[in-house]
């Protein structure tokens, strides 16, 4: 068994978010529904879903009333790239600010009361758009107070928030083939706030699976600047029979700089599995390993060199 404890900073490092200067928009449409305007791109991780959830929550309207525009910068502002575990936390928080701005616009000109129903909100949007032609609210990133990075001395707070995790791997080593199999895996993390339980779990399981590949299977070979084994037949990634049950547990302490307390989780699950698995192999075999992936041939080579060293030490021991 092996354990890894680790953390992952969310958002761009150092002054990165300040330089990105992201802008997010939200607009009311003529039919009274609202549309989130971001350049953050959905590729299966659930960005569209969680950003619409955040907007709906901030506006106090059903999720079904919120849509998201195509991430095309001719129609959306630049909310920065979809990287660095930043979308739920940084862009999400800007979506929330923009949504609050839209609501306040409707409330300040008297179109919408302090307390309102979803139907009243839709009606207010329709009226405003009919009268003024457009209702759009923008929010621009500003550095959180008390978080400062010094670009000259390269010191300070590198991230506004960190996700924290403990991963545990239970493995077996086949002493005939020297292959390692992960038998059980527990992934516990504190991510501030789980915005969508199914999607958050999917991010963790998928990341752990990919990192099990990093730990045990996926060896990139280079020749003359090109990848030598760039095929599914010789670059081995985990298939359906290769993975253990991955038990995902979330803790939610919150985060004042993220939407509803969220921190980034996209990259986090790539960090922990390899050290946990290598520690488990060290625990099982009593030999240190210092590289990944632990392919059978690597384990065999290390075990052979170790057994030679052990054999060499036998006369010295027996002479005592």
């Amino acid at each position, binding site marked *: 068994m092996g354990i890894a404890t680790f953390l992952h900073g969310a958002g761009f490092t150092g002054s990165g978010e300040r330089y990105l200067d992201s802008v997010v928009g939200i607009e009311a449409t003529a039919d009274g529904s609202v549309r989130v305007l971001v350049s953050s791109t959905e*590729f*299966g*991780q*659930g960005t569209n879903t969680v950003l619409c959830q955040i907007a709906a929550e901030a506006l106090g309207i059903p999720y079904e009333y919120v849509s998201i525009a195509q991430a095309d910068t001719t129609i959306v502002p630049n909310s920065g790239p979809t990287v660095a575990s930043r979308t739920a936390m940084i862009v999400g928080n800007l979506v929330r600010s923009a949504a609050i701005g839209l609501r306040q616009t409707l409330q300040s000109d008297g179109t919408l009361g302090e307390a309102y129903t979803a139907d009243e909100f839709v009606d207010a949007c329709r009226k405003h758009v009919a009268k003024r032609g457009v209702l759009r609210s923008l929010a621009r990133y500003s550095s959180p107070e008390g978080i400062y990075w010094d670009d000259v001395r390269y010191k300070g707070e590198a991230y506004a928030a960190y996700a924290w995790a403990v991963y545990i791997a239970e493995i077996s080593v086949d002493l005939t083939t020297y292959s390692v199999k992960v038998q059980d895996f527990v992934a516990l993390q504190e991510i501030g706030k789980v915005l969508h339980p*199914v*999607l958050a*779990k*999917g991010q963790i*399981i*998928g*990341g*752990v*699976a*990919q990192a099990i590949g990093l730990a045990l299977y996926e060896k990139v070979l280079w020749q003359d600047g090109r990848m030598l084994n760039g*095929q*599914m*037949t010789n670059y081995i*990634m*985990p*298939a*359906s*029979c290769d*993975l253990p*049950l*991955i038990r995902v547990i979330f803790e939610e302490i919150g985060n004042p700089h993220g939407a509803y307390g969220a921190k980034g989780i996209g990259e986090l699950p790539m960090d922990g599995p390899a050290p946990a698995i290598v520690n488990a192999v060290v625990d099982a075999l009593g030999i240190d390993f210092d590289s990944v992936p632990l392919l059978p041939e690597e384990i065999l080579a290390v075990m052979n060199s170790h057994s030679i060293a052990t054999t060499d030490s036998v006369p010295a021991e027996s002479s005592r």
Partner: protein
Amino acid sequence: MSPQPGPAKQKILLAVNGAPRTIHAFPMARLLDVLREDLDLTGTKEGCSEGECGSCSILLDGVLVNSCLIPALQATGSNIVTIEGLANDDHLHPLQKAFLECGAAQCGICTPGMILAAVHLFEKTPKPSIEEIREGLSGNLCRCTGYLQIFEAVEKASRNEVAD
């Protein structure tokens, strides 16, 4: 020796998702391309293009095949089912619903092939165990999900627990 004449396009008759179709394709055209380009059925995805990843899985006369490896001529007279053949108008197949509910699809490239592999599994084993699900989907690679939510979806669909 005079140069060999190049292959000519041939008329191929087949049934796709229950409808008879006629195509004109080179004999060695990949069935994957015929489906996507000639028949406009872009639900079938191209992954590795070498028969390893299972993204382009379809059912050909009830057999699960990688359509990137099937020459068009070989499909003559066959009965093909693609992902487009599963939903009935707006009514999704139970597997499709279960995939949505369980978060079994992320980027979506493996999803059509995964679902067809599960359809194929159900034909042999209507109530598969988790080991049988793992085995049944072992020809289909997924990089996003880590598979577990896919297994959950297949299990859910097999137990008829998908809400309408």
